[in-house]
């Protein structure tokens, strides 16, 4: 079991489900000793279930999210998945969700690779015959951005808002043998931009069909995009185009997005 990320709320591990040949993601929410034990159990249970229910529902609706393989919402469980591997009884190690492993690369990395690839190319070339090739390459990134927008649109159509959309919470699902090729990328190599966009990390997700909530979801993504990928930010319009085309009702959300932008959501969170 390898630790992938350690956030404020949860630890994410790569592990297996049932058999060593089925990779899985394990999200453990450890007990928070600062809060009253009754409150701790209540909140942990609520959140684990909220996230698992959201994912299970989205899978049924055909939205590209990791499926739920197992859940333990009881902080008092004495049998911890982590403990077994270490050969010990991990008492109170936390409640958990075991999820389908999505092979591939987070969109944040894909885009930054693309940005690097682009700048390495612009250094080495500069004649007119490259123009057509350049447009072809740009068409690929535009298509990816539209798929990102469509993925968010389909999520919203299913009645869920993500609550924390960033390019780190989107995975470009890899296919074939090199599906998990995160490390095997050489500077300046053309990155793969093909594949399904899968939404992950529903820890802050909730059910909503309100234009306001949907628009805030888009706004958070837009802000994250701007701060993480300043060079690609001018293309963010493609994400919104993909969103617009993905479901009826997207129009009024995009209109609302303009209000949310004007309001600036009061604060500068991503600065």
């Amino acid at each position: 079991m390898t630790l992938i990320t350690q956030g404020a709320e949860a630890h994410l591990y790569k592990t297996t489900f049932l058999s060593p040949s089925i990779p899985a993601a394990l999200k453990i929410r450890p007990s928070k000793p600062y809060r009253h034990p009754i409150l701790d159990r209540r909140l942990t249970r609520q959140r684990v279930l909220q996230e698992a229910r959201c994912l299970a529902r989205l899978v049924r609706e055909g939205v590209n999210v990791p499926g739920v393989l197992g859940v333990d919402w009881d902080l008092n469980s004495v049998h911890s998945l982590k403990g077994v591997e270490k050969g010990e009884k991990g008492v109170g190690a936390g409640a958990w969700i075991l999820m389908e492993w999505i092979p591939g690369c987070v969109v944040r990395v894909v885009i930054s690779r693309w940005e690097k690839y682009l700048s390495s190319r612009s250094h080495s070339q500069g004649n007119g015959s490259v123009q057509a090739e350049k447009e072809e390459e740009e068409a690929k990134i535009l298509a990816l951005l539209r798929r990102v927008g469509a993925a968010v649109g389909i999520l919203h159509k299913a009645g869920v808002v993500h609550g924390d959309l960033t390019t780190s919470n989107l995975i470009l699902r890899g296919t074939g043998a090199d599906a998990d090729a995160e490390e095997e990328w050489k500077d300046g190599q053309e990155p793969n931009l093909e594949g399904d966009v899968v939404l992950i990390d529903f820890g802050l997700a909730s059910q909503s069909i309100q234009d306001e909530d949907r628009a805030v979801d888009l706004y958070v993504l837009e802000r994250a995009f701007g701060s993480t990928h300043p060079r690609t930010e001018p293309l963010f319009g493609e994400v919104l185009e993909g969103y617009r085309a993905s479901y009826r009702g997207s129009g009024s959300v995009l209109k609302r997005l303009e209000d949310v932008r004007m309001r600036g959501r009061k604060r500068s969170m991503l600065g």
Partner: protein
Amino acid sequence: MSPPLLDTIHLSHLPPSMPVHVALYRDVQNAPYLRQQLMSANADFEYAFIDASTVLSRTHLLSAVFRAVNDYMNGRLKSRNVHSEIVFSLSPATNIAESFRKFGITDATKDLLVVKVSVTPEITHESVAAHLGQHVEGTPVPFDDETLSTISDIAKIKKAYKLGALNTAPPNQANGTHDAGMRRLELSVLGAIALRGAT
């Protein structure tokens, strides 16, 4: 009687001392007898007897086993023992009797899945194989997805999991292939098993 093809499996995250033994039979002749042993709580027949037509795949069955054993280890069983809990764990609903009606062995069962967990050291591959070989009258077949795919009754499974509306077989459609549809059905079923009883 032919020797059973008993599969002994070590599930990830469960203690290595607790392997799970699974056998799959076709053309079972004595389902009423086996069911009777369960009804009379004959301790020698503490198995999960499952109607194999309600099971989609290896992963489907084993995830129910995983849930049941995890609940067993945490002292959270809702039914008599870990084996009845496996049948119960296949169900998306909290009604135990109903779960047995839907997923358990019936007198009409022809294709049968049998599961036994080594909850004590005396339960071994050999002991389970011998006992089943003696008492199950049927044709042992491999417990694999290929075999199960010829047995599982998709319509029945969708109904049991209230997934009737789920689009599973749209070949040549934008949304993907038959495989993708089945994968989605399986993931939906796994989610339902994992979340049973969540309030």
